């Protein structure tokens, strides 16, 4: 009898699982149906946008619809998928931007503007609130990316991306206040327009990556075209921009001491979030594409970044889609040499931070998936973004789909009560994400 029950329930469970899979496959919104605004968001909704779906420029007018951040309206709640719970972990954290985890589980938060500081939370035993909070470092200009070096259980430094470059602080695991003053590691990074500077290390500790966004929307003002482009590209990278955009719209690489600068990859308009994929050591970027081409052009993207690859900015987007706006002339020579990003997202979503799920709390088959914070649109008639999405992976490869995971920050057509910036997995496997609209760090937990 017992066996019969077991077998029947197993069969039922298998059937349900198959049904769920089939349903999920059918439910992926593709082609033009994949595009849309916050009205179409719901936990679990899956989308897939491919290069073939890229909409012609100005198929719709370029809109300006800046969101107004309001306090959480009475009754407004975030929505997430069954089994998950989302709650504030810390509030009153103005300018909450990048969030990273120390080897002992301490939570490092950059409060960028105008605070200019790094805050550290030590989570309580249950993980649902800070037990202790300290200021790790203050009086920084636009602190953003945070990285521990060397990688592994015993880092000796905390690196912080700031205006103009990278600084580092001496660190021992458990420190909640910097053990010494900031030491400048990289200086001379140009300021202006895209100001976030994310930083990450290769797992072997040999390479420091620094993401520097473009100094403009689409380089209308770029001038000073190198007379010998081949020589310029040899010393920089395929598709590297010049003049005021030199060493911008790039992922740069250095030694951990800030020496031997090189362009790791070019043409990435604004890689706001750098991440290293566990197991493969590959570099990933969450990237904001260009403005003023209409509601659904062009897709933002999340991609593995291949060394020496060119991702299009400013002359091309999503492969060989040409943009004629850059100053200083076209680059027909680059056509056919533009690397297509891995996962395309709804245009103007504004993906900022990303993280890979190391496992430990979320469903086992979500281990290795990427999660991305979408800060939300301004250059679109109706708002889009303002949510956390999941990018499913099969092994080390993304499926190309993405799924609404936490939604609900929109409060009508004009107002939002949160703007997600970064995501990170805490030591207990829960997901933390930041909101710089109302200065909140949220925590998402899972229980079967």
């Amino acid at each position, binding site marked *: 009898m017992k066996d019969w029950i077991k077998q029947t329930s197993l069969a039922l469970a298998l059937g349900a699982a198959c049904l769920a899979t089939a349903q999920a496959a059918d439910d992926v919104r593709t082609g033009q149906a994949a595009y849309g605004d916050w009205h179409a968001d719901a936990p679990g909704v899956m989308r897939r946008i491919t290069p073939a779906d890229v909409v012609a420029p100005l198929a719709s007018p370029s809109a*300006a619809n800046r969101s*107004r951040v309001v306090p959480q309206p009475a009754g407004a709640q975030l929505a997430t998928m069954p089994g998950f719970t989302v709650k504030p972990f810390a509030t009153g954290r103005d300018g909450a931007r990048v969030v990273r985890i120390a080897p002992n589980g301490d939570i490092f938060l950059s409060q960028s503007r105008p605070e200019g500081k790094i805050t550290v939370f030590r989570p309580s035993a249950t993980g649902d609130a800070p037990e202790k909070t300290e200021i790790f470092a203050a009086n920084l200009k636009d602190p953003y990316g945070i990285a521990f070096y060397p990688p592994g259980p015993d880092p000796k430094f905390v690196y912080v991306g700031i205006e103009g470059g990278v600084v580092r602080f001496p660190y021992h695991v458990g420190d909640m206040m910097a053990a010494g003053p900031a030491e400048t590691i990289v200086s001379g990074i140009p300021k202006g*327009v895209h100001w976030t500077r994310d930083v990450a290390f290769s797992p072997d500790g040999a390479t420091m990556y620094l993401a520097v966004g473009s*100094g403009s929307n689409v380089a209308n003002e770029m001038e000073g075209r190198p007379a010998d482009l081949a020589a310029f590209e040899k010393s920089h990278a395929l598709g590297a921009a010049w003049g005021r955009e030199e060493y911008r719209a790039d992922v740069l690489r250095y030694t951990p001491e800030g020496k031997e600068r090189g362009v790791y990859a070019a043409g990435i308009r604004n890689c706001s979030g750098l991440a290293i994929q566990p197991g493969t050591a590959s570099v990933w970027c969450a990237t904001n594409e260009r403005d003023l081409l209409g509601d659904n052009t062009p897709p933002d993207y999340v991609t593995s970044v291949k060394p020496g690859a060119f991702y299009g900015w400013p002359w091309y987007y999503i492969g060989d889609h040409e943009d*004629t706006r850059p100053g200083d002339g076209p680059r027909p020579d680059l056509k056919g040499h533009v690397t297509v990003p891995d996962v395309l997202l709804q245009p103007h979503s504004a993906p900022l931070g990303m993280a890979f799920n190391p496992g430990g709390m979320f469903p086992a088959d979500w281990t290795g998936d990427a999660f991305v914070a979408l800060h939300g649109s301004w250059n679109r008639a109706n708002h889009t973004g303002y949510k956390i999405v999941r990018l499913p992976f099969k092994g080390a490869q993304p499926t190309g789909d993405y799924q609404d995971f936490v939604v609900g920050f929109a409060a009508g057509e004009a107002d939002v009560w949160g703007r997600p910036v970064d995501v990170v997995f805490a030591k207990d496997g829960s997901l933390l994400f930041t909101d710089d609209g109302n200065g909140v760090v949220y925590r998402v937990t899972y229980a079967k």
Partner: protein
Amino acid sequence: MKNIWFVVSVLLTALQPHAIRAQDASLDTCWSCHGQQGLPTDATIPIIRGQRADYIEAQLRAYRSGDRENQIMNSMAESLTREDIPRQAALIASLGWPHTTAPQASAGADLVAGCKGCHGADLMGGPSPVGPAPRLAGQNAAYLKSQMVAFAEGQRSNQEVMQALMKTIDADSKTAIAAYLAGLATTPTP
């Protein structure tokens, strides 16, 4: 033969990428944030209608070059041509600053004495020795406060005198100054 050339020329035209033209330079784009009647619904956004043309022009140039930073305005200013900027500035300036006779906020008069050297005795702006100074009387308080903070903290770095000055003023005074300026009656503009 003629027909073949016609076909070839059509094909050649079709093969050329469609030029992406600059955004239509009508003011509707501005009003989508800065208010249809020149009065933004969001007080963190400045009133621009009737602002001094020289100041608007200087700011659009700063946004275009990246010297002043704001994601939306950087893209917007970049999409204007160099010739568009003075034309747009003149057009916006010509609309007239909102005339208000609002009762003044009580505190703050003494705090703004130092502003008048550049921004004018009536705080309606002026051509100051360090560049065009904007109208402040009647401007949105939340915007004024945000700019004072941005000058002090360095996020707005296109005016050295304001950067130095704002570093010397504490947060409470900034709030009081912003409230006082926003509540000032304005002088009618032509």
